[in-house]
């Protein structure tokens, strides 16, 4: 009897597991005779990877091909996990920043994904299979992220990485102080103000949650025994403070834009005061200055490799920083923050071998398993292991070689990029009224950027300049 119950329990749990990863469009493929860079279990020569219905079922030599499964002969090629970009503003419709309020936790990028963005295909061509699609950096507490898989060709809802933890953007320093303080004369005007916005919002959320919970409890009592318990006056659900309260309860993980050591220390102090854990600093150009503190607080880093000096707060930087953080125990990744850079994240990783002496395996961790851990999806992606998702890129040479070109990209075992079947026009939709010569906005760093839509606020020196449309760096 117990056995039967156990069996039924197993069946139910298998059913539940299947229903959580509910995305239906999965594929199968047998990749043969490749050099397999597993990331977590070494590099394997002349090895096969078998993906069945979207999951890696076997990794080994001379595997049998199940009936009906396509074979991909990858002799001489390198197989690695699909690259994961922990910071992207790709594929967002009509606004990266809800920039009218310094706190906008209520908005979510999940509402505004644009599955037709051809940039997704370009990212797939660079071997990227997952990304954190982030709100911009105009607000101290920005919007919630969408963790996505690049299932190009599917609907927006199908891009959502099932079961991934909810992440949220924070931003420190010049961007929120320029937009809100200089731009409008409201808090935060200074770095001190940024800290106060965080603290005041946290306090408001604690207060809200207490009031809301008290109401819900009283209402439940009333619903159960209406005569003994009078109906409480409603406390409306407040979406913004709900999300902030969830940050304080560890249900939403912070991913904060930052540059300077002092603001990094500031946010860790605030988080310690409120018990916030499991957060990641993004850009973190001065991360190398505060490595012991990052380690002590178990804070992760999603770093630029060699982008700096585009504004005052980003002057003190070095390409050695990611390797230094990695070697001293900070969970470190690299990100693109750019629809161009996302196409060659392998080059970014390679720089960490040159600057700081990471091993090749360590360098690849910066764009695979480490961002996966930071985003809470490492049980599914980030390394090639039996049971993980069939998210894979296959390269003509070792991916850290400048000569390596990505040949194939698979997501859930479905081939989403094949260099041999790569026509000129990969847009999903063509406008019936556009002329052939219309190219749209295909260049310009104003798009898919941290401060998209806000560039007109600043002149070329970064000062508020409401009448011009001149550029300022986005990061």
């Amino acid at each position: 009897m117990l056995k039967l119950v156990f069996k039924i329990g197993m069946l139910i749990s298998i059913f539940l597991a299947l229903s959580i990863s509910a995305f239906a469009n999965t594929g199968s493929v047998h990749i043969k005779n490749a050099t397999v860079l597993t990331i977590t279990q070494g590099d394997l020569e002349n090895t096969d990877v078998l993906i069945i219905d979207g999951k890696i079922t076997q990794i080994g030599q001379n595997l049998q091909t199940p009936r009906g499964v396509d074979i991909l002969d990858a002799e001489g090629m390198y197989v690695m996990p699909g690259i994961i970009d922990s910071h992207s503003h790709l594929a967002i419709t009509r606004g990266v920043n809800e920039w009218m309020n310094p706190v906008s936790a209520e908005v979510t990028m999940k509402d505004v994904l644009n599955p037709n963005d051809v940039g997704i295909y370009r990212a797939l061509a660079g071997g990227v299979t997952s990304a954190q699609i982030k709100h911009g950096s105009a607000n101290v507490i920005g919007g919630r992220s969408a963790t996505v898989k690049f299932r190009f060709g599917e609907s927006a809802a199908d891009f959502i990485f099932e079961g991934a933890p909810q992440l949220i953007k924070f931003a420190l320093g010049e961007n929120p102080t320029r937009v809100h303080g200089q731009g409008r004369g409201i808090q935060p005007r200074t770095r001190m103000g940024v800290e106060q916005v965080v603290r005041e919002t946290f306090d408001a959320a604690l207060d809200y949650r207490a009031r809301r919970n008290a109401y819900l409890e009283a209402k439940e009592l009333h619903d159960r025994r209406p005569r003994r318990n009078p109906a409480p006056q409603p406390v409306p659900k407040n979406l913004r403070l709900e999300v902030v309260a969830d940050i304080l309860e560890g249900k939403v993980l912070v991913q904060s834009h930052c540059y300077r050591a002092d603001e990094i220390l500031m946010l860790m102090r605030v988080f310690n005061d409120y018990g916030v854990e499991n957060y990641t600093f993004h850009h973190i150009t001065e991360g190398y200055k505060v490595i012991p503190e990052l380690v002590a607080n178990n804070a992760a880093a999603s770093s630029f490799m060699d982008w700096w000096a585009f504004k005052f707060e980003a002057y003190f930087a070095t390409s050695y920083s990611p390797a230094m953080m990695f070697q001293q125990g900070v969970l470190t990744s690299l990100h693109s923050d750019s629809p161009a850079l996302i196409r060659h994240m392998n080059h970014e990783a390679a720089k960490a071998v040159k600057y700081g002496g990471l091993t090749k395996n360590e360098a690849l961790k910066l764009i695979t398993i480490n961002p996966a851990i930071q985003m809470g999806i490492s049980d599914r992606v980030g390394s090639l292991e039996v049971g993980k998702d069939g998210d894979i890129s296959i390269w003509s040479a070792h991916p850290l070689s400048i000569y390596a070109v990505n040949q194939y990209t698979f997501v859930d075992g479905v081939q989403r990029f094949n260099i041999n079947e790569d026509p000129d026009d990969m847009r999903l939709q063509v406008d019936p009224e556009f002329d052939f010569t219309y190219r749209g906005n295909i260049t310009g760093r104003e798009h898919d950027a941290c401060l998209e839509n806000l560039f007109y606020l600043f002149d070329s020196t970064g000062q508020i300049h409401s009448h011009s449309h001149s550029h300022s760096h986005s990061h």
Partner: protein
Amino acid sequence: MIRKLLFIGIALFVFDSTVFAQAIPARAYTNVIITHHDGETERGHIVWRGNKIEAVGSGITIPFDAKVIDGGDSLYVYPGFIDGLSHIGSPDVPSNLPRVDNPGKPGNERAGIQPQRKPSDHLEDSNNPYEGWKKSGFSSSAIALKGFMLPGQVEFFSLQGSNTINHVISSNVGIFSQFEISQGVYPSTLMGIMAQFRQLWYDAQAHKEHKRLYASNAQMYEIPEHKPVLDAFIPVIRREQPVFFLVDTKEDIERAVKLFEELNFKLIIVSGKEAWRTADVLQSKNIPVLASFDIPGKPDWMKDEEADEEISEEEQNFRERQELAWNQATTNVFNLLQSGVTVGFASAGMSAGDFIDNVQLMHEQGLSKNQILRILTENTATVLNQSSNYGRIGAGYAANFSVWAKSILEEDSSPMALISNGILNEF
């Protein structure tokens, strides 16, 4: 004198029990070709009195008092078309909105959150903006004001030229929403509108509950504040009114459907130019579409069939894709019907001058005459919850129909007369 009046009264009563109606003389079109809402055609007569149709058919008796126009067996009559959502007569959206000190809290009006506004309080009809639609055969229209995220209520009007504003057939038809931001204030993005819509809903739920509790025990609860914006949501929360959501792309339709699923309101998709891409979802969730007939023009190269120019392989590929896209856009409505979606019509900002040409083009692209008529009449009336009185030519229905010299599908066709709410307009 009294005797005489009494005699007339009795005489009227004998002729017809609708004594009061008899005081208004009847009118009639005789010997016309009547095409009904479902495309069925009959030759016969239409008699109407006041704003109601009294009798239709070939065997009916024309009342002695009727003023008759003889159609001479050659005039076509269609039910009055119904516009499921228009902005006719709406003032334009103000262009220079004032700067606010704290754009995060701009106030509802500045943010374009005005679901309590009624079109009948705001329409500007001094230059008779309704005329173009009347001349296309439209006798009634649901009207929403132009605006931003929540511009106001939807009201159903009889199109009566410059006097339309005084001819509300039905208020409280629904509230109108769209993904449009008001510049320079919160919500300033699409994601902001999504969040704000949810927040308004939560606030309205609490407001509704608070008012209910206060009404049950005034001593125990705080006096509810006057909140007309939230009050406008209450019938929507109760599912007594739908939300008319103007959305076109597949992704925007999916966003409206997402809100519908989260909040459980009655949803009507307005315009829906790419609705065919989500037809399965709309059909399975029973969400009707008031479809736009505003279809894209043919690309130049498609018009010029004789052209024999050398083009690159890339351009050839583009042309094939563009032709497919154009065909998809012009068969949107047809494909929605094929999928079993309820489809009505909404002008939703389109120009009246394009209407008949586009109807004919959509007919060439597969939409049958019967389908077109049903969409423009009974289907729209049903979606607007007005089908008991509108959308058909039949005894007891509103006297709304148009008279044409030739079939609507013939070249250069247009109505020669429109009977709207019983009033004859000759063009």
